[in-house]
């Protein structure tokens, strides 16, 4: 692995992704920007349809085009814009620097080959090393991800592994590429809490050891609170809030973040009725006018219901929220316009 200089490893700027559907063009990701730095963890949080997975698939060049289309923006890796590269080169560059771990390891691994075979194949293809060395390296990688009896388990097929072990095998495959940036898309969602804790600990260890930049895509605000440095909260294809994790949880500046944090049951609290967010997340292609969160938002005013959509407001140095009333939300006071209306 190359010794990484300080500074961003991966820089996504103003990314927009569109899908062509029978009902027209749907903008799944709109104006997303983030920076991944060595040794830091960026969490992208959102519900289904918020565009959190699509954005990273776009960066990796894994979206089928068509129907998908990169409608704008850049993804800079070592100063090169990945999004303008031809598909083959894109894959080659990503293969060298960025790796991805998926939620459904059983679907991501090939069922007709042993885990060892798949690891070996990847190593041979990437590092152009003899098969014999690659086999040895495959065992080392499984050891690295704390797979018990790695020597024997390389000969097993994916279906012979438990959910947690499969996820380890996937992480091993990602590490075979010696990535500088690891994108983990819901890596623990299908797992039990005990196994989730094992996997998250493993990822943290590997990250610290290799000074990897980690992009963690998840819907679990608990996991984010445990591991992330920065948070991007996505809603209807846009980053509605971007902040360091302590600020985002301590004084959320977007009503969605705030409501989401209030609506989850907590282990350390026995509550009565939960403060839920009314309605449901909008579906792709039917995002409402104005601020897409306005139909579910307690702060919504007339200005929120009409276009243009709110642009990011810098509520504190390096903290952004896409809300007309971000400052009020952050300070936990009623927006000025609201008090006027009531009177």
């Amino acid at each position, binding site marked *: 692995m190359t010794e990484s200089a300080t500074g961003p490893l991966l820089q996504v700027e103003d990314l927009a992704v569109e899908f062509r559907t029978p009902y027209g063009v749907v903008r799944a990701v709109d104006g997303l920007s983030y920076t991944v730095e060595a040794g830091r963890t960026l969490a992208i949080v959102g519900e289904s349809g918020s565009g959190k997975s699509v954005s990273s698939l776009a960066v990796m060049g894994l979206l089928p085009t068509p129907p998908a289309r990169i409608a704008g923006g850049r993804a800079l890796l070592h100063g090169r814009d990945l999004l303008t590269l031809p598909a083959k080169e894109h894959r080659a560059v990503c293969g060298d620097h960025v790796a991805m771990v998926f939620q459904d390891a059983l679907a991501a691994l090939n069922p007709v080959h042993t885990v060892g075979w798949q690891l070996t194949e990847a190593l041979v293809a990437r590092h152009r090393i003899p098969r014999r060395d690659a086999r040895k390296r495959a065992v080392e990688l499984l050891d690295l991800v704390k797979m018990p009896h790695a020597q024997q388990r390389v000969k097993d097929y994916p279906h012979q592994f438990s959910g947690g072990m499969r996820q380890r095998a996937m992480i091993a495959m990602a590490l075979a590429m010696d990535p500088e940036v690891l994108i983990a898309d819901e890596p623990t969602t299908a797992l039990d*809490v005990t196994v*989730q804790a094992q996997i998250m*600990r493993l990822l943290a260890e590997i990250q610290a050891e290799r000074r990897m930049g980690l992009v963690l895509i998840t819907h*679990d*605000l608990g996991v984010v609170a445990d591991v992330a440095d920065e948070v991007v909260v996505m809603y209807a294809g846009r980053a509605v809030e971007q902040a360091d994790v302590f600020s985002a*949880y*301590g004084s959320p500046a977007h009503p969605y973040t705030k409501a989401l944090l209030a*609506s989850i049951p907590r282990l350390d609290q026995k509550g009565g*009725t939960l403060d839920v967010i009314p309605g449901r997340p909008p579906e792709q292609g039917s995002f409402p006018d104005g601020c897409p969160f306005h139909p579910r938002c307690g702060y919504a005013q007339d200005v929120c219901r009409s276009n243009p959509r709110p642009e990011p407001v810098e509520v504190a140095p390096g903290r952004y929220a896409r809300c007309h009333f971000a400052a009020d939300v952050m300070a936990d006071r009623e927006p000025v316009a609201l008090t006027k209306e009531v009177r």
Partner: protein
Amino acid sequence: MSRPMSETPVLEVRDLVKHYPVRVGIVIKRQVGQVKAVDGVSLTLHRGRTLGLVGESGSGKSTLAKLLTGVEVPTSGQILVDGEDVSTFGRAQRRRLRRDVQMVFQDPYTSLNPRMSVGEIVGEAYDIHPDLTPKQGKAAAVRELLELVGLSPDSARRYPHQFSGGQRQRIGIARALAVRPRVLICDEPVSALDVSVQGQVINLLESLQDELGLSYLFIAHDLSVVRHIADEVSVMYLGRVVESGPDAQVYDDPRHPYTRALLSAVPVPDPTLRGKRQEIVLEGDIPSPIAPPSGCRFHTRCWLASRLADSGVPERCRTEDPALTVQGATDHVAACHFAEEAAGAVRGG
């Protein structure tokens, strides 16, 4: 607890066992073992209350749900509804039992028939149990049920694919409520839903409980959700209940090392607590229920046992199967030889 001791529990399970045979051979089948999915479980659910059932996948939670709803027949043990043993029931009584105990499933996408309209799905219960059809007629009853779960009565004409996950889960709940059950078995009812929608369904279940006096067996792997909704909690491990009691006792003063580990693994959405919580990471996966470990089933993964003796796991944990014993409060039980030490390890930090 202000509950009178004399009150008959609405649902009681005594020493319930379900073993599935493991067979090999195609023509001549030989039984080579048994999957001990549920291996001696006792539970008590009182009227109007919620019993939370937690544990990892493979602990037997869902098999238990199948036994309670009559989908599977237990190998041994008793299920009592209102104090009556269901195994003694005849055909008519079994039919009656299915009305009393209804189920809400995890996946709202596969548990509703896509070819049936919502009205047909919810109203089907009245075709099977015609004596339950209200005087106003089936259509009126369906409309009332849909309103009860927070859906528009017009939804009856639409089909499941036209609804979101949260709405489908509401349809599933309406269907379960059609036969006026007294017990709802909720098997992971919110785990397939979006975070912002989970709370809505939890609130709905709670308000329905108050309104209709329902009792819930709430099966979930999400311990935060169970803490929120349950009055009593039972923790399962490898087909057994290892700890059981009122929710405050189990959550705040866990006595079984497994409960302790399970609770410590749940991430709390508060970054300021990072690194301050005592975290116990269990090694490995849950063992196979075909050949559960000897003695205490948890000893192969127990963090406490390995701390107690320098020479590894104490002899007693490896050989002697711990029984559920009372811990402090009378209705708080745990199956661990060293429950006191487990509690001490928690308090001592």
